[in-house]
C-alpha cells in the first residue's frame, strides 16, 4: 500500500504531470469562479486537447478541473451571491451574509482550508477503498453490473429536485437516445435513418455541451444576468481560533458525508452540500444563526462538495461506471486514451491509477496555495460583464464539439440539444437524469441482454446470485421507500395534531 502510494507520488511529481495538474486546477478554479461555465462543459471542451497528452497527464488534468471548480465556485457564491458552480449554491446562504458583515476574508479562508482538508481526506479514502473494491468487482458479472446500474437509475430519479415522474421520463428518454447507433452486440443499425453521424450514436460531448452549456447561456441571455461584485476589502483570510473551533466539526462531518455520498451513483457533488447544510443546522445549538452568516454553513458544505469529488472517482476507477455527469466526461477522456477504467485498471495501469490519486493530493496543495493569494485576481475576473463572456462560452462550446469529431453535424446536434435543454429548464424537466441514463444505457443493455442469455431468459438470475440479489434489494428499497415514508409521515402528523388538539 505505502509502496503504491510512493509510486503514485513519483508519477504525479513528474514535470509533465505536475504541469497537467497545475493547468487542471487553475482552469478548474477559473471556470468555478465564472458563473455559467461549469466543469462538464470545460472538460468536454478540453477533450480534444488531451489527444496529444499521455493518458496519465490527461486524466490528471481533467480530474484537476473537477475538484478545482469546487474551490472556485465558493468565491463567486461568497462575493457575488451567484453560485459559480452548482455545488456552491448552499455557500451563498451564509457566505454572502458573512461578506456583507465584513467577513468575506474569513468565509473565503475557511472555504479554502475546509476544501483542502476534505480533499485530502477524500484522497485518503480513495487510496484505502479503491483497491479492495476493485478486487471485489472482479467477481462482478453482467447480472451484478445490471443490478448496480439499477441502483444508479433509482438514485437518479429518487434524488430529483422536482417531479419524480418527470425524472423517470427523462431517464427513459436518455436510455432510449443511448440506443441510437449500432447495436452493441450484433452491430445492427438502430434509428440511424441512413446517417453516418448517427451510426456512431449521439455524441456525449455535443449532448452535454448543448444541454448544459448552450442552454445555460440561453437562459442567462433571457434573464439578462447582471453580476454585482460585493465591494469590500478582503482581509483576514486566515480563520481565527474561534472560526476554527466553530468549523472543525462541520468540516469533519462534511468530509465523511460528502465522500460516502459521492460514491453512490447519481449523487454528484451538489446533494451532499444540501445534506451537510441541513445536518449542521440540525446539530447546531443556534440553528437560527444559519442564513445570517454562520461560518458552519460555509465550512460544512464546502468540505462536502470537495470530498464528494474524491468519492465519485471510486466507481469510475474500480467499476468503470460513471456515477455522475462529470465522471461521464472523465470516462470519455479515459476511452479517448484507449484505457478502459474498471477492476483491472489498478493492475494493468498502476502508474495511471496511483498517479491520478496522488495528483489529487498534489492538486489540493496547489489549490490552497493558489487560491488565497489569487482571490484578488478572481474578484477582478468576476467584474467581466456577462455580455462579453457569453459569446466566448458559445464559441468554446463549438470548438470543443468540433474538435472531438471534426464533424459539423455534431455542432448541429449540440445546437438542437441546446434548444431542448432550454425548453427543459423552462418546463422544469431536469437534464441530469437524461444524461446519466444516456451514459449508463449502453452498459445496462449489454448487461441485461447477457444476463438473459446466461439464464436462458430467466430474470431470476438477478436474485439467484447473492451480490446481484443484494444490489437489487437495495434498488427496490430506494424505489419504494418514498411511497412508504409518505403515509408514515402523514400518519405521524395526524397523530401529533390529534394528541395536541
Amino acid at each position: 500500500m505505502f509502496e503504491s502510494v510512493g509510486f503514485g507520488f513519483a508519477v504525479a511529481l513528474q514535470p509533465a504531470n505536475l504541469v497537467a495538474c497545475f493547468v487542471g486546477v487553475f482552469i478548474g478554479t477559473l471556470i468555478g469562479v465564472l458563473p455559467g461555465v461549469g466543469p462538464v462543459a470545460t472538460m468536454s471542451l478540453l477533450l480534444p486537447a488531451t489527444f496529444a497528452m499521455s493518458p496519465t497527464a490527461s486524466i490528471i488534468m481533467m480530474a484537476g478541473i473537477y475538484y478545482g471548480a469546487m474551490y472556485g465556485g465558493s468565491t463567486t457564491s461568497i462575493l457575488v451571491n451567484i453560485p459559480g458552480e452548482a455545488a456552491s449554491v448552499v455557500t451563498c446562504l451564509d457566505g454572502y451574509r458573512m461578506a456583507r458583515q465584513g467577513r468575506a476574508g474569513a468565509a473565503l479562508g475557511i472555504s479554502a482550508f475546509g476544501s483542502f482538508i476534505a480533499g485530502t481526506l477524500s484522497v485518503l479514502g480513495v487510496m484505502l477503498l479503491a483497491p479492495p473494491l476493485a478486487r471485489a468487482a472482479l467477481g462482478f458479472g453482467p447480472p451484478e453490473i445490471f443490478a448496480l446500474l439499477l441502483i444508479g437509475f433509482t438514485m437518479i430519479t429518487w434524488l430529483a429536485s422536482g417531479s419524480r415522474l418527470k425524472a423517470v421520463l427523462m431517464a427513459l428518454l436518455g436510455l432510449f437516445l443511448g440506443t441510437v447507433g449500432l447495436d452493441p452486440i450484433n452491430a445492427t443499425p438502430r434509428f440511424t435513418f441512413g446517417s453516418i453521424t448517427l451510426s456512431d450514436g449521439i455524441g456525449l460531448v455535443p449532448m452535454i455541451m448543448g444541454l448544459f452549456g448552450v442552454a445555460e447561456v440561453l437562459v442567462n441571455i433571457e434573464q439578462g444576468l447582471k453580476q454585482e461584485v460585493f465591494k469590500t476589502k478582503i482581509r483576514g483570510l486566515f480563520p481565527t481560533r474561534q472560526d476554527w473551533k466553530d468549523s472543525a466539526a462541520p468540516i469533519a462531518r462534511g468530509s465523511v458525508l460528502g465522500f460516502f455520498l459521492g460514491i453512490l451513483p447519481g449523487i454528484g457533488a451538489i446533494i451532499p452540500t444540501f445534506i451537510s447544510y441541513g445536518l449542521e443546522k440540525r446539530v447546531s445549538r443556534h440553528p437560527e444563526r444559519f442564513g445570517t452568516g454562520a461560518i458552519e454553513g460555509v465550512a460544512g458544505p464546502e468540505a462536502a462538495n470537495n470530498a464528494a469529488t474524491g468519492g465519485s472517482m471510486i466507481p469510475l476507477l474500480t467499476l468503470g461506471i460513471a456515477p455522475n455527469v462529470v465522471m461521464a466526461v472523465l470516462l470519455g477522456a479515459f476511452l479517448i486514451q484507449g484505457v478502459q477504467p474498471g477492476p483491472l485498471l489498478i493492475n494493468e495501469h498502476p502508474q495511471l491509477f496511483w498517479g491520478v490519486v496522488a495528483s489529487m493530493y498534489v492538486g489540493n496543495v496547489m489549490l490552497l496555495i493558489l487560491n488565497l493569494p489569487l482571490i484578488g485576481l478572481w474578484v477582478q475576473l468576476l467584474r467581466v460583464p456577462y455580455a462579453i463572456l457569453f459569446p466566448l462560452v458559445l464559441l468554446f462550446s463549438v470548438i470543443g464539439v468540433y474538435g472531438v469529431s471534426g464533424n459539423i453535424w455534431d455542432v448541429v446536434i449540440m445546437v438542437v440539444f441546446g434548444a431542448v435543454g432550454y425548453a427543459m429548464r423552462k418546463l422544469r424537466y431536469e437534464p441530469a437524469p437524461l444524461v446519466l441514463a444516456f451514459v449508463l444505457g449502453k452498459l445496462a443493455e449489454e448487461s441485461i441482454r447477457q444476463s438473459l442469455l446466461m439464464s436462458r431468459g430467466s430474470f431470476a438470475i438477478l436474485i439467484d446470485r447473492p451480490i446481484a440479489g443484494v444490489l437489487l434489494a437495495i434498488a427496490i428499497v430506494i424505489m419504494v421507500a418514498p411511497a412508504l415514508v409518505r403515509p408514515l409521515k402523514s400518519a405521524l402528523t395526524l397523530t401529533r395534531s390529534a394528541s395536541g388538539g
Partner: protein
Amino acid sequence: MTSPTADRAQRWAAAALTAFGIAAVVQARTLPFGSITRPAAGFFPMCLAVGLTLVAAAVLVRSFRERHEPTANAEASAGRFARGAATLVALLVYAFALDAVGFGVATFLLITFLFRVIEPHRWIVALGGAAVTVAVTHVVFRIWLGVRLPIGPWGF
C-alpha cells in the same frame, strides 16, 4: 401562484413526449426483437419506447389534474426571448458556414453578431472584440492545443 399559460405549456410538452414515445415504438418495431432467451437489437429499445410512452402519458394525464407555477423566467420580455432564439439560429448558421468559409471568417461574423445584436455594444467594440477573439482562439486552439478547425478557401 399558478398560471394558465404554464398549464398549457406543460400539457404541450407532455403531449410532445408521448408522441415521441409512440414514434419510438413504431420505429422499434422495425428492428428484430428476438426472444426473451435470445434478445436481439430491438429488445431493449422496444422496452424503453413502451416505458417512455406510458410514463409520458402519465405525465400528460397529471398535467390536466395539476395547476402549474409559471415557467422559469416567465416574466422575461418577448424581446429577451427573441434574443435567445436569434442566438440559436446564429449558431446553426455558423455550424453550416464553418466548412464553407472556414473557422476564421465564420467566427468573426458570429462574434460580431453576438456582440452587436444580442447584447448591443458599439460597432467598434463588436468588430474589435471579434477580431481579438478570432486571433486568440486561433493561437490557443489551433496552434497551441492542435485542435483541428475547418479551413476556408482563404487558408484560415
